[in-house]
C-alpha cells in the first residue's frame, strides 16, 4: 500500500515539476532583454536614464 502511495506521490511530483518547467518556458527572457533588464535595474532611479 505504502509503495503505491509513494509511487503516486512521485508521479504527482514529476508531473507538477514538468508542468511548471514547460510553463516557465513560455516566459523565457532572451539574452538581449536580460541586458536591458540589468541596465534598467541599475539605472531606473537615475533621471538621466532613457529606456
Amino acid at each position, binding site marked *: 500500500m505504502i*509503495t503505491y502511495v*509513494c509511487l503516486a506521490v512521485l508521479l504527482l511530483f514529476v508531473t507538477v515539476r514538468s508542468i511548471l518547467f514547460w510553463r516557465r518556458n513560455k516566459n523565457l527572457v532572451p539574452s538581449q532583454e536580460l541586458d536591458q533588464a540589468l541596465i534598467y535595474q541599475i539605472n531606473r532611479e537615475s533621471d538621466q536614464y532613457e529606456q
Partner: protein
Amino acid sequence: MNNKIPVQLRPPRHTKYVYEKLRICKHCLRYTILYDEECPTCGKSGGLISLHSKAAAQVQRSIRNDRLIALLITLVSIFFGRTFQEMALALVAGLLLTGVLIYVQHRTKPQAISRELNRIFIRDRQQIINGLIANLDWAAAIGKENKALSYEMMREIATLVHDDSIRSLQIMLLQSFVLRKDMDLELEPLLQKRFDPDLVEYIGELSKIKRELIKDKTFRYILKYEQHIASMSRGDEILSGVAAAAVRQKRYCLTYAEFIARYARLFPKERFLRLYRVVNGSPQDDWGALGEEVARIFTEKYKWDADFQQPAIRSNSL
C-alpha cells in the same frame, strides 16, 4: 603649455552581452565589473565567477534537489514493497519517472538559467549597484597615479551605469591624454544630455584624427549646442571640423546640409574638394543653401585650381 601625457590604452573588453562582464566574489559576495583576477573588495584571487555561472550553479542545485527527492521517494517505495513484484514495480516506475524528470530538466535548463539571471538582477539590484559604486570609487582614487588605468576602469563601469557624471570623468581623463589615431577611442557612449565643453573639445580632437567616430548622434548633439560651442575660444574651429567630418558621406551632406553650409568656407582645400565633388556629383538632389555656398566658394577660391577640374578618382580615404 600642453600637459597631455602619452598613454597606451588597453582595448575594451568585448562580450556578447553586457551582463557577462559582471562577476561576483565567492568569498565576500561583492559584485564587480572590473576585469582583475583578484576581488577588488577582499583582495582574494580565484574567487570571481560570472553571473551566468552563479545562476547555473543555483539552477543545478535545484535540479539536484528535485532528483534526490525523486530518488528518495523511489527508495522508500521499494523499501515498503511487500512482495518482490511490488518492489520490482516500484523500481521500474521510480526509475521511469525519475528519467522523465531528468529529461524535462535537461530540456529546460537554459531557460531556467535565463530566468534565474533575471531573478538575480532584481533580487541583488542594490548589491550590484554597491559593487559598481565601489568600482567607481577605486577608479577615481587610482586616477591620481595612473590615469590610463582609471579611464579603462571607468569605461567598463560606464557600460552598465549610464550617468553623465561618469561620462564627464572619462572625458576629463581623455583630454589629459595625447590622442592618437591608433587608439581604441569611443564617442557615442560618452555623449551627454547636457552641454559639456570638455566633450566638445574631445569631439574637436576626434574630427582631426578619427572622424569616422562622428555619426548622427554626435551631429545632433553639436547642432543642439551650436550656439554654446560658437562662443567657446576654439568654437568655430571645432564646428568646422565636425562639419568637415560630415562630408565623408553623401547621406550626412544631405541631412546636415545647412550646418555644413555655415562652415564650408573654413574647410581646408581637400575637404572642400570632396564636398564639391559630392554636391556636383549629384545635381538631382536638392542641396539648397549648401549648393549655393559651395558654388560661391568655388568661384571665389578654386575656380582656376587644377584639382577641381579633374574628375574624382575613387579612393578609400575619408
